[in-house]
C-alpha cells in the first residue's frame, strides 16, 4: 500500500485524484517519512518549474526573423536539378567552360567570351549539358531557369557574360550567356493516367490502381504536370524482382509496383520561396523502417504531409542507401530549402 502511494505521488502533487484519495494520502504522510520527503520535493519542483523560463523576447526579434528570411529568400539556390551522382558532370561542364574562357588569347571585357575550339567545341559543350540534363528531367521552375521573383535577387548570377554593366551586352554565343541555352530539353509530360501493366499479378495491379487514384486525390496534381522521363518499364520491374530490400523509388507516372509505404511529394503551389516539392515513390517491404527514417529526419508533420529541410532530405536519402534501400529516381523541384512529402500507405 505504501509503495502505491510513493509511485503515484504525482497524482497527489498535481491533484489528479478524488478528495477521498487525497485525504487517505495525507493521513499516510503522517506516518511515512519516505513519502513525505518525496511529496515535499515534488511540490517544490512543481512550484519552481511553473513558468520558470520567463525570457522576454528581444525588441528586435521580429526584425531579425525578417532579415534572416530575406537572406534565405535571396540566397542563390545551390541545390538544383542535378542529382548527387551526376554532379561530377556539372563540374566537368564548368571546367570546360572555364578552360574555354581562359584559353582565349585576350579577355576583352567589351565583348563576350568566345569558345576556344582547340579546347572545346560548342557541340561538345552542348552535349555535356544535354547529358546532365537528360539524367534528371528538370521541372520548369528549376534553379537554372530562375523565376521572375528570384531573378532580381540573383541578379544575373546565372549569366556568364563578362560585358560590363556600363555598356550594353553584344550578341552572345548561345552556349554562354543566353540563359535559355542552359534550360534543359523538357521531356514530354504524361498526358493521361498511365495504364496499369497487365503482366503484374492481380494484387499488385489493385495496389497500383488505388495508388494512382490517391495521387490525384491527395496531391491535387495531375500527372500531366509531373515531368516524365521516358523509361523502360521492363527494366524497372526487373529491378523490382531482384532488389533484395524491395524498395524502389520511381517516377509516379510510370507507377512501378508498390509494396508498403508509398511516398509522394506534393507539388508546391506556393511562391518561389515556398516549400520545394516533387514526386517520389518508395515501395518498402518493411514499412516500419521507412516510418522510422521519416520520423528521424522530418522537422514537422501535418496530417500526411511530412517536411524535411534540404539538408535532412539529403541525409534521409543517404540513409536509404546505407540501409541498402535502392532508389531509382527522385523528382524534386526545390523552390526553397525545404521539401515536403505526402505519405500514403499503399
Amino acid at each position, binding site marked *: 500500500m505504501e509503495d502505491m502511494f510513493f509511485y503515484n505521488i*504525482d497524482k497527489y502533487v498535481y491533484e489528479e485524484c478524488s478528495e477521498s484519495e487525497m485525504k487517505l494520502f495525507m493521513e499516510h504522510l503522517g506516518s511515512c517519512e519516505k513519502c513525505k520527503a*518525496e511529496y515535499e520535493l515534488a511540490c517544490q519542483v512543481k512550484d519552481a*518549474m511553473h513558468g520558470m*523560463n520567463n*525570457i522576454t523576447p528581444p525588441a528586435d526579434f521580429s526584425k531579425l526573423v525578417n532579415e534572416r528570411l530575406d537572406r534565405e529568400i535571396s540566397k542563390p539556390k545551390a541545390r538544383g536539378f542535378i542529382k548527387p551522382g551526376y554532379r561530377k558532370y556539372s563540374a566537368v561542364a564548368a571546367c570546360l567552360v572555364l578552360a574555354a574562357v581562359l584559353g582565349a588569347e585576350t579577355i576583352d571585357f567589351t565583348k563576350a567570351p568566345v569558345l576556344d575550339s582547340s579546347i572545346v567545341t560548342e557541340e561538345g559543350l552542348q552535349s555535356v549539358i544535354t547529358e546532365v540534363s537528360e539524367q534528371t528531367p528538370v521541372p520548369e521552375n528549376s534553379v537554372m531557369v530562375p523565376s521572375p521573383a528570384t531573378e532580381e535577387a540573383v541578379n544575373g548570377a546565372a549569366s556568364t557574360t563578362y560585358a560590363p554593366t556600363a555598356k550594353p551586352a553584344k550578341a552572345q554565343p548561345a552556349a554562354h550567356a543566353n540563359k535559355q541555352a542552359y534550360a534543359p530539353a523538357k521531356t514530354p509530360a504524361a498526358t493521361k493516367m498511365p495504364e496499369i501493366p497487365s503482366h503484374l499479378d492481380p494484387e499488385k495491379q489493385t495496389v497500383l490502381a488505388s495508388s494512382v487514384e490517391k495521387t490525384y486525390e491527395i496531391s491535387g496534381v495531375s500527372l500531366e504536370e509531373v515531368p516524365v522521363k521516358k523509361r523502360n518499364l521492363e527494366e524497372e520491374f526487373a529491378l523490382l524482382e531482384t532488389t533484395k530490400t524491395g524498395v524502389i523509388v520511381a517516377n509516379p507516372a510510370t507507377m512501378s509496383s508498390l509494396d508498403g509505404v508509398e511516398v509522394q511529394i506534393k507539388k508546391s503551389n*506556393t511562391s518561389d520561396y515556398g516549400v520545394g516539392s516533387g514526386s517520389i515513390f518508395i515501395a518498402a517491404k518493411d514499412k516500419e523502417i521507412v516510418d522510422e527514417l521519416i520520423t528521424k529526419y522530418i*522537422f514537422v*508533420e501535418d496530417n500526411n504531409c511530412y517536411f524535411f529541410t534540404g539538408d535532412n532530405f539529403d541525409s534521409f536519402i543517404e540513409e536509404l542507401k546505407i540501409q541498402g534501400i535502392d532508389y531509382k529516381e527522385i523528382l524534386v523541384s526545390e523552390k526553397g530549402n525545404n521539401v515536403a512529402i505526402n505519405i500514403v500507405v499503399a
Partner: protein
Amino acid sequence: MTEKELVKLLKEGDRGAFNALIEEYQSKVINIAYGMLSDTEDAMDASQEVFINVYKSIGNFKENSSLSTWIYRICANVCKDFLRKRMRSAKTVSIFSSKEDEEIIEIPDESSSPHERFEELELKDQIRETMDELSEEFRTVLVLCDIEGLSYDKIAEILKCPAGTVKSRINRARGALRKKILEKRELFNSSGV
C-alpha cells in the same frame, strides 16, 4: 483578425500577417526553445528558424490542427534537431597540444566541488541543469507541461501521440527528474562537506 484570416494572409505571403504571427507566438516559442536547449543564444537561433519554417511551410498547412499546435510542433522538432546537431558536433580538444596556434584550454581552479556547486544553485537552476541530462523525450514533455502549462491533450496533439502516452511519459519524466536531483544532492551530502 481570426486565425483563419491570419492563415489565409500568411498563405498569400503577407509580411504584415507574418509579423503579427511572430508578435503573438514569439514569447512562447522562445521559452519552449530555451526550456529544451538551456542556452539563450541557441534558443534565439532555434526560434528564428521556427518562424522561418512556418513561413515557408504555411502553404501546406492543412488546418487540421490549430495554428498554435502546428507552430509548437515545429518548435519541438527544430529543438530536437538542434540537440542532435549539438551532440554530433561535440568536440574533444587535446590538452597536450604543442602547436602554438591551437586553442589553449584553461582549466579553472574551482574551489567548490561539482556537488557543492550544485547545492549552491537555486532549485530552478538545479532543475534546469538536471533537465539537460534527461532524454529529449522527457525534456520535451516537461517543458511543454510543467513549465509552459500546456494540457495533456494539447501536448498529445503537438507530439502526435495519444494523451495516455503523454501522461505516462510525463509521470516517468517527473520521476526521473526528481531521482536525478536527489542523486546529485546525495553526492553532495556524502562528500562530507
